[in-house]
């Protein structure tokens, strides 16, 4: 068993079954990306309705920088996930739920990469290169193309709605496991959280 996924847990009844959490790196990346996605989503929804102003240009740039950051962090997460086995799910979880979880997690990873990518294509098609932190200019992924720009606006929006839907499902499942099933599922990803056994 990998050492990083191993953690013993003692609660007020005495010894309990061992709780195996995700590694510290996996937990840190998960919550960092979660916060960035939430922030970026809120900012993205807010900024599109702004009138053109220096503030709007700033917010758009911040949104794009965050998107690039999310993409890079998700790539690191994915590499970490592939090379580090996550802790097993509790034995009480039925087979179909394991499959559903695996599918949902795959879709989450795909969307977490696809959403920033679609933003990059949109920005590039709009004739606005992305300059990461105002320093590093990303190459033009596509040539300036007004029709593609309009299309990518819809695609970026649709992918975000899809991501929102899967995230809601993801959160609902975590909450259900913690408060209804009272198993280890959420505690595996939250430091110091104890399952409500």
């Amino acid at each position, binding site marked *: 068993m990998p050492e990083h996924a191993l953690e013993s847990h003692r609660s007020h009844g005495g010894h309990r079954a061992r709780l195996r959490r995700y590694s510290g790196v996996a937990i840190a990346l998960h919550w960092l990306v979660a916060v960035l996605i939430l922030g970026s989503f809120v900012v993205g929804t807010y900024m599109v309705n702004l009138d*053109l*102003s*220096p503030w709007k*240009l*700033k917010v*758009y*740039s911040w949104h794009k920088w965050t998107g690039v950051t999310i993409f890079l962090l998700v790539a690191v997460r994915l590499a970490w996930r592939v090379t580090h086995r996550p802790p097993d799910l509790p034995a009480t979880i039925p087979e179909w739920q394991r499959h559903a979880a695996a599918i949902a997690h795959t879709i989450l990873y795909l969307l977490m990469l696809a959403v920033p990518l679609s933003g990059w294509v949109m920005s590039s098609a*709009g*004739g*606005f*290169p*992305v*300059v990461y932190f*105002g*320093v590093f*200019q990303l190459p033009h992924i596509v040539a*300036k193309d007004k029709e593609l720009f309009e299309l990518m606006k819809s695609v970026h929006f649709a992918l975000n709605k899809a991501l929102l839907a899967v995230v809601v499902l993801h959160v609902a499942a975590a909450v259900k496991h913690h408060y209804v099933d009272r198993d280890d599922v959420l505690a595996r990803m939250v430091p110091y959280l104890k399952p409500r056994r």
Partner: protein
Amino acid sequence: MTFARIALLFLTIVLTSSAAFAGTVDYKKSRIGFTFRQMNVPVEGGFPQFTANIVFDSGKPDAGKAEIEVDLGSIDTGSTDGDTEVKRKPWFNVESFPKATFVSTSVKPLGPDRLQVSGTLTIKGRSRELTVPVTTKREAGGTVFEGTFPLLRLQYAIGEGPWSDTETVADDVQVRFRIFVAGT
């Protein structure tokens, strides 16, 4: 080979001095564009509508003249939002100042196919002296005059109030022009 050299020189003089004209500008082959930076992001734009009067004699470049009038309302900033915004008062104030003009005051040859053109650029009622390096290039059916120069937008009050913040939109705008004069 002295005779051949003299003959060649003579031929060159005859050929180049015959290139005197006040030709017609072919607007399909001409362009005034610019690159500005917002949040350090380079954005391309241009002015599709302009008129240019060019008088040029490669034998007597000093006698050359250029007058360019740019229709500011035709501006393309790379986005619809931007196009609407920059016509408004804080930017070009197109309603009161529909045109930008450049009138040359001197043309100096800097070498073969290179000129230094000085003149007055007027935008939004503000006039500044401007010196621009220009290259000339013969192409089929005419001559191309090309050049790039930095324009400091705040010198012409392009972008006032909150828009004068150069952290967001840089002061330095690179202007590029290519003017094709036909019939030479």
